[in-house]
């Protein structure tokens, strides 16, 4: 009896071994479902990776770094963290730039009207940037919205980068998709129940998002942004009320969240553009409260420092 079983098993083994090896496409990861049946994208997805917004022009349409280029970028990131101010080290990836469309990895040109609009700000100085208080710090108007602890806006809040506090958390509930960013304490609570956008006159810094599922991908369309504010981290262009951003969140592996954001504002850029990030899952990364304004001593220090400098120069 034992012999029969053994022979049978051997036979099955031979048949299996002789079966033609079918070419299988790589298996697409299927995320688990929430108890109410939506794909589960929840978790902590910090953008603690080093990918610049735009690609060097001489790279053309090559979107992947060589090993040597990646090492150079990684080393530069370590160097910045060692010698810079408040900067954390994040590893480089092979992705050459966040911008993936246009194919050269660079933002499309601004419209002539946008250029004119920018030049008209602050007596020709242009929209305030992070470093603009070094040139002029007359009032809070010389600080960008991040420096004023207001917002990084969209897509500024989603940018990974070589700075600090890049935590992102996704939380879901029936009919709700929540994206929380550590930097500047942003939380977007996005309805996914099909309700329409708010009226066009109700505008906010982070806009009005509406989500829906396309297969396992959460698609968030955001409109109703405040106009004439700069998009933090993106050229500091003053945007118009035509700004519309479509984001796609897709868990392509248990520990990877694929993110695309397509930005269109025909009043600012000649054509839409898209950025891409693969956020790694890090359950150990906890978001720390960013109660920015309460502790923004830097604002008073900078304004007072500028007045002291004026007095010193007046005495000379």
């Amino acid at each position, binding site marked *: 009896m034992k012999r029969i079983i053994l022979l049978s098993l051997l036979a099955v083994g031979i048949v299996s071994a002789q079966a033609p090896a079918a070419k299988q496409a790589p298996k697409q990861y299927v995320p688990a479902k929430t108890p109410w049946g939506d794909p589960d994208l929840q978790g902590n997805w910090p953008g603690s990776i080093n990918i610049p917004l735009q690609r060097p022009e001489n790279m053309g349409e090559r979107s992947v770094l060589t090993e040597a280029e990646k090492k150079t970028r990684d080393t530069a990131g370590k160097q*910045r*963290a*060692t*010698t*810079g*101010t*408040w*900067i*954390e080290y994040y590893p480089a990836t092979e992705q050459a730039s966040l911008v993936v469309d246009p194919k050269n990895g660079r933002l499309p040109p601004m419209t002539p009207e946008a250029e004119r609009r920018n030049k008209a700000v602050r007596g020709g100085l242009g929209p305030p940037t*992070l*470093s*603009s*208080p*070094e040139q002029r*710090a007359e009032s809070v108007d010389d*600080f960008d919205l*991040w*420096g004023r*602890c207001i917002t990084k806006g969209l897509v500024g809040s989603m940018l990974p980068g070589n*700075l*600090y*506090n890049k*935590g992102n958390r996704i939380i879901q509930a029936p009919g709700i998709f929540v994206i929380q960013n*550590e930097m500047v304490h942003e939380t977007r609570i996005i309805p996914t129940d099909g309700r329409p956008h708010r009226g066009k006159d109700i505008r906010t810094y982070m806009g009005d998002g509406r989500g829906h599922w396309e297969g396992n991908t959460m698609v968030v369309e955001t409109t109703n942004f405040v106009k004439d504010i700069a998009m933090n981290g993106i050229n500091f262009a003053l945007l118009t009320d035509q700004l519309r951003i479509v984001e796609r969140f897709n868990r392509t592996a248990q520990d990877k969240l694929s993110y695309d954001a397509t930005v269109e504002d025909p009043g600012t850029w000649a054509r839409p553009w898209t950025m891409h990030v693969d956020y790694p899952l890090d359950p150990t990364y906890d978001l*720390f*409260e*960013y*109660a*920015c304004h*309460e*502790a*923004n*001593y*830097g*604002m008073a*220090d*900078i304004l*007072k*420092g*500028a007045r*002291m*400098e004026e007095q010193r120069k007046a005495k000379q």
Partner: protein
Amino acid sequence: MKAIAIVAGLLGTVPAWAHHSFAAEFDRNKVVNITGTIIKMEWVNPHAWIHVAAKNPDGTTTEWMIEANTPNGLLRRGFTKKSLEEGTEVIIRGYQAKSGDNKANGSSMTFKDGKKLFLGSSSGDEEPEKQAK
């Protein structure tokens, strides 16, 4: 011995990328070395602040506020709540505020036992990764 030594000198470029501009708030040419004891630490974003009582030669004390890295950044570099208990003796190296106030951006902190912690910016000290261990 002077408790506070202000050393003027040209330092290397300090990149100004953070929540706000380093160069607008601090004078990179005005290095301060502050010896004193911890009064308290504010574990707050966008940057933590450490309050230090520096002893003056005449026996009085001067309170300094030291701007440090973000709470999360400090935790990852070896700081804990117990690192800075009230009364701990420290030597802090940093850059004084342009306002002339007793505020500084901290680069490193040295404890009595020689252990160092990186506070957020560089003044030519050794690598922060090494200091945190």
